[in-house]
């Protein structure tokens, strides 16, 4: 049995699955239920300025009959009195001493406010802070949240204030609503943050009610941009995570991965790209805390199968596998192959290739079933047919190298080899 326990900046948890700062972590009753269900830690919903929320607050994007492929919210930071939050945090730590308790902070934009808030929260016995520099709505208008995270100078200044006062580890959470997360990430690391976490939610409009013409979520006939999250944002989060993992400055600190993590597989992917642990929110908002059971079991089984004893055995393993386009091997060539025994004759590969790719699939008419085969000489190995095929392993990509040696774009160009040849 693999060891899935996690140590993040000295903060220990029985597994690498934390609940992200959000409604599931805003009060004792939820957090205790989460710990009972088995979550390794929580990031308590952001404490800070006084706020007032609106109704409604959430909206979602459904896809192909599945609910909540993407999710957005316009809820603000905790709207409960600070004192109640603090006493509940303390109680939760006492009841579950083996779990990680991180508290998310977003103070008013002055040093004094940050210092006062840090002091109060440290008194609860919390194990660490997460600085909310990412919230994309409501707080930005007041110079907080993403307004801080979008400007490296301001972010640096606030992190410096925090580091002056904090005696427990500090994680800085980055906003994705920037052209690159690296400048802010670097500024925060240079200012002394102990770790980074990303991504926060992405500004979004999830859809429009075609009767009222009002976008979602609906608030008395109006809407605002909401923070997008859930499975839909995972690929974007993974890309941003990679840039942080590959940067010489930001890669020096541990990273907590966030953005659409719903299953143990998602978690492994974040960890392979450099996250030491992951935070989850949308998936539990859809299914409840019980999903952590399979996350732990699935991770454990995968590690056993692959022979990994601890999380550190595989964290970051895929980071070096993402390279620059010009370093890719041009001699690597694959062509599609359709397994006729498995083919169900749906024609999806054919129409995708014929209409939108390289016209590399031959259709032989049959009634009612056509037969489809690959024109190997036309196939560029794009994967499209394989991706749209509904049958597992029916279409496979077979390697047919153009040359034995590794050949990248720069070498290819210098050799004067033919271009635009397809």
């Amino acid at each position, binding site marked *: 049995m693999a060891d899935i326990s996690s140590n993040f900046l000295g903060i220990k948890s029985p597994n690498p699955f934390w609940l992200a700062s959000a409604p599931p972590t805003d009060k004792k009753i939820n957090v205790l239920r989460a710990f009972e269900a088995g979550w390794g830690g929580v990031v308590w919903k952001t404490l800070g300025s006084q706020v007032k929320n609106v109704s409604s607050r959430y909206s979602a994007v459904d896809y*192909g*009959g599945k609910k909540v492929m993407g999710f957005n919210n316009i809820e603000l930071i905790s709207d409960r009195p600070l004192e109640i939050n603090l006493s509940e945090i303390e109680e939760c730590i006492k009841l579950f001493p083996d779990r990680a308790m991180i508290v998310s902070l977003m103070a008013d934009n002055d040093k004094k406010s940050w210092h006062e808030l840090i002091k109060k929260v440290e008194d609860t016995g919390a194990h660490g802070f997460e600085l909310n520099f990412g919230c994309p709505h409501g707080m930005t208008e007041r110079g907080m949240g993403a307004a801080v995270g979008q400007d490296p100078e301001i972010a640096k200044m606030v992190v410096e204030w925090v580091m002056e006062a904090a005696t427990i580890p500090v994680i800085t959470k980055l906003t994705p609503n920037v052209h690159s997360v690296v400048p802010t990430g670097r500024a925060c690391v240079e200012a002394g943050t102990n770790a980074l976490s990303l991504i926060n939610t992405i500004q979004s409009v999830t859809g429009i009610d075609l009767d009222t013409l009002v976008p979602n979520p609906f608030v008395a006939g109006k809407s605002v941009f909401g923070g997008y999250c859930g499975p839909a944002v995972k690929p974007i989060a993974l890309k941003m995570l990679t840039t942080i993992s590959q940067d010489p400055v930001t890669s020096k600190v541990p990273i907590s991965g966030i953005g659409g993590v719903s299953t143990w597989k998602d978690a492994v992917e974040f960890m392979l790209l450099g996250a030491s642990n992951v935070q989850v929110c949308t998936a539990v908002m859809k299914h409840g805390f019980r999903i952590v059971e399979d996350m732990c079991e699935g991770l454990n089984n995968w590690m056993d199968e692959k022979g990994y004893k601890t999380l550190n055995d595989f964290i970051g393993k895929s980071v070096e596998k993402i390279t620059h386009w010009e370093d890719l091997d041009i001699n690597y060539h694959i062509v599609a192959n359709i397994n006729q025994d498995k083919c*169900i*004759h749906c024609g*999806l590969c054919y129409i995708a290739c014929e209409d939108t790719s390289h016209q590399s699939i031959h259709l032989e008419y049959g*009634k*009612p*079933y056509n037969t489809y085969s690959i024109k190997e000489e036309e196939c560029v190995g794009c994967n499209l047919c394989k991706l749209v095929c509904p049958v597992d392993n029916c279409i496979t990509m077979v390697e047919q190298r153009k040359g034995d040696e590794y050949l990248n774009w720069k070498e290819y160009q210098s050799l004067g080899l033919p271009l635009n040849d397809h």
Partner: protein
Amino acid sequence: MLLNIKQSELIIMIKNNRLTKEQYEENFRDIHPPFETHDAALVEANRCLFCYDAPCTKSCPTSINIPKFIKQISTENIKGSAHTIFQSNIMGAGCSKVCPVEKLCEGSCVFNLMNETPIHIAKLQRYATEKAITQKWQLFERKKPIGKKVAIVGAGPAGLSCAHVLSREGIDVTIYEKESKSGGLMTYGIAAYKVTPQFCEDEVNYITSIGGIEIKYDHELGRNILLADLQKNYDAVYLAIGVGLARQLEIPGEDTEGVFDAIRFIYELRNNDFSSVVVGDKVAVIGLGMTAIDAATQAKRLGAKEVTIIYRRTEAEKPCTDVELDIAKLDGCNIIWLAAPKEIKSVNGKVNQLICSKMKLGEPDASGRRSPVETDETFLLEVDMIIKAAGQTPFEKLVNDISIKNSKGKIEINNCVTNIKGVFAGGDCVNGGKEVVDAVQAGKDGASSILSYLGIKN
């Protein structure tokens, strides 16, 4: 020999009113219930793979673009979905209830090749089309009248389908129907647990609501209308007269009281209150086509104690589908394979025994199926009612009387044209009796041919 019938057993066993009102209702309830909710339809619609050059479409005689109409349900474009269906098959609603989909669209769904349940195409088709009919969506616009008139004989699926296409093109259509209702076999010849009289009426009203289609009831070709008059008064004539009664068994005793014709039996059932329709205690049904199944199951559902289907070949050669056979079996009907009726015996002029020959399989016949060959052995069934459902006979005399070229009563056509210029034909009267969906396609083909004849582009 075996005729020592006691006097007490001679009580007439063919009678009506065998069940309570509730039992009739239960027995004739819709056998394929619709989706209860929009969500349920969505779940099923989203399961569809949206195949290209889809096998389901190719297996539909009317070539409905099935992936498209299902996709349209999933995008909540129900009007578009209904339009896609009706564009190819104006009786798409009825077909969704009566088509043997297991051997047509659903039978070729690619999910079958994955050993998965095929998409419930019929149920989805019903979902979209019933909405259109209930909400009275007029999805087609009739072109301005162009001053051409076409007469159609028979308001069954072929006639109605032909009429709708012609009306869309601005032609004024008059349909002559011998019955007092439209729909043909849909209204008169299909099991009541598949379609209700109300549905058939609504479907016909929906089809004719496009305008330009007048139906004259109680008009029968050869009785109170003449082909010559139609030829004189219209620019073209389309014959969609269907087929007649069940094929004769040609065995002794066939005229005995208690021997029924399946078409007649179902006609009675579809036209009257269930409680007024008579049925025997012990019923034998001859044949194993869809009509035989409809007759057997409904005899049972009317309260017959024992229903036995007699079929001269084996299960491998059966004309009905597995699904239909299962309905009969679940209804408790017995099936005797390799048996052919030989003689009907009676007591006091009423059926009381059916003597059957045991058969064996011989060489394949014209249909490719192994043919039944009579053996020396016979057996005897005690019955009080016999329903003949071994195929239907075309109106041979009628078509001969009007000098239409035919083959044993089946009208011969070339591109829907008969031997008489301006007279077209299609549907069961040409093919000898197929599915409703085949007749709908025949009507479309007929209309297309008529339009060409009239010099109208379509």
